[in-house]
């Protein structure tokens, strides 16, 4: 168990390309931190620097109170769960779990005890003697987590561990990971490009873009007060409407903002609303529907109950505190 500190961390590749820069994060002991961002934003690089699989070109990584920049991955007291699980295909599940302990000279009895505990927690007891290829995707995923658990490390590092699973299993495993982490209280860093996964799992989440941190905060903080237009559009589904303020000069604050953001659920249909919307397409989701359309030349989306009346032209109103204003050039939040 340990806290992890990333101090002005940066990565520049040999060719001079910068992948990550100026990252400062303090991760508390037992915290579940999620790094989220689009592909190529540097989140995996960041995680791999913490793991020791990627060299650190700037700043430092601390695990506990030890600077680990030059420490081998095996000696950093971390365990990692990979996207493709990286199970050793020629070893049984039991050997897969035990390999890291064996390499560290853990006594046989202790290895057996820990493998027993992990297989109880993850309910993989029945296939301990099978090879990974005889397991389903979900079972492999559990074995990969088991391999991390038996090590009893100071931190778990997850690199998109659920993206190879089908949608249904992904939701179930997401919950399992959350429960497991709450139970073991092991500091965890979790990388994903899926904002829903990020929202549901994180104690705090870090939104990354272009190798820089856009925002750090609890899921609700980030959702309610996105620090930039990028975060606003990335977190939340359906995405927040971002409207060029010139198109809606009558809205509050539009005079000094570049973009105005309104979440779809904050727009309601009222006969005398200030925003006019021409409906282009409707997606039925069951309980509610998504209505896509345009105001002026700006695309907007709203949600409404699926039994509400629909017509080609709607008038919309919004709650006064639901508007998010972003700077014209920097995209930063204005208040």
């Amino acid at each position, binding site marked *: 168990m340990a806290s992890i500190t990333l101090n002005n961390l940066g990565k520049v590749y040999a060719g001079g390309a910068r992948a990550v820069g100026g990252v400062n994060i303090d991760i508390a002991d037992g915290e579940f931190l999620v790094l989220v961002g689009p592909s190529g934003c540097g989140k995996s690089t960041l995680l791999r620097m913490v*793991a*020791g*699989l990627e060299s650190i070109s700037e700043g430092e990584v601390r695990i506990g109170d030890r600077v680990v920049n030059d420490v*081998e*991955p*095996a*000696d950093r007291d*971390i*365990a*990692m769960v*990979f*996207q*493709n*699980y*990286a*199970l*050793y*295909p*020629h070893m049984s599940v039991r050997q897969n779990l035990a*390999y*890291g302990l064996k*390499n*560290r000279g853990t006594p046989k009895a202790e290895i057996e005890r820990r493998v027993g505990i992990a297989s109880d927690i993850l309910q993989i007891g029945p296939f301990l003697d099978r090879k990974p290829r005889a397991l389903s995707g979900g079972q492999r995923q559990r074995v990969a987590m088991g*391999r991390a658990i038996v090590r009893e490390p100071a931190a778990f590092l997850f690199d998109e561990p659920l993206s190879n699973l089908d949608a249904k299993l992904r939701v179930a495993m997401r919950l399992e990971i959350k429960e497991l982490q709450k139970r073991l209280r092991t500091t965890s860093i979790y990388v994903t490009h899926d904002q829903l996964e990020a929202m549901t799992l994180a104690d705090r989440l870090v939104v990354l873009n272009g190798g820089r941190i856009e925002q750090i905060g609890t899921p609700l903080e980030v959702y309610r007060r996105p620090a930039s237009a990028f975060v606003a559009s990335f977190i939340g589904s359906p995405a927040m409407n971002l409207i060029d303020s010139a198109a809606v000069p009558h809205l509050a604050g539009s005079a000094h903002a570049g973009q105005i953001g309104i979440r779809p659920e904050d727009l309601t249909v009222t006969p005398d609303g200030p925003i006019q919307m021409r409906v282009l397409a409707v997606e039925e989701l069951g309980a509610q529907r998504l209505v896509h359309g345009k105001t002026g030349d700006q695309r907007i989306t709203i949600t409404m109950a699926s039994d509400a009346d629909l017509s080609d032209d709607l008038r919309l109103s919004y709650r006064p505190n639901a508007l998010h204003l972003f700077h014209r050039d920097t995209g930063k939040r204005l208040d």
Partner: protein
Amino acid sequence: MIENRPILNLLAHLTLILGVCIVALPVWVAFVASTHGPTAFMSGTIPMWPGDQMIANYSQMLGAGVSTSGTPPVGVMMLNSMIMALSIAVGKIVISVLSAFAVVYFRFPFRGLAFWCIFITLMLPVEVRIVPTFQVVADLGMLNSYAGLSIPLIASATATFLFRQVFLTIPDELTEAARIDGAGPMKFFRDILLPLSRTNIAALFVILFIYGWNQYLWPLLITTSSDYYTIVAGIKRMADAVDGLPQWHLVMATAMLAMIPPVIVVVAMQRLFVKGLVETEK
């Protein structure tokens, strides 16, 4: 096939049966010859059906050999061939798998140069530079030794490339998982890389065993003591020596014995053999 045409199918079968017969013909003739006594060849054409001297001929060759030919018993030559073939196959695999590991999993100065040094061996078959290579082996005092028979032949660009290809298809994550699990390079090599390459190693072994067993020019040149004769090289000496007296039944028995081990390997391990053949040419 797309349409069912009995005539075409029949034609295909006939072609194949004819092909199989042509392919088998020389071996059948050799087998038949090896089962007759010396008198069968005195009178005109060789017989086409097996005789009754098979056991006598083969046991004579395996145990005693032909004293006039200066070759040792075939049993001794087969043992020499076996030692040479196994040394070459194992040697090539060992040094190639190590080199491929070095080239794929490490970055070091002159890595490219080392790689090209290995690559260049492809362009220098032993037959082409036979005289100076013989000179080197003679200078090193390796004539008439098992080391001389095998070591000069075990450098292998093809095997190194094969293992390099195999290693490149092993996911990076596996290496990373092993590093996090505390495995250093040699431990990773032993615990992960070798077990994952074992079918490739087996397939390559089949090809290399045949390659080693069938070596001809090299053993012919560097063995002057009959203790080190291999069967494939020895058979020529035997045919030369018996040319005066037509002891064809014994030469053909030797030819059969020279073929049997590699043919058994190919037929028994056909799947591995085909895999090895296709992979080494990729």
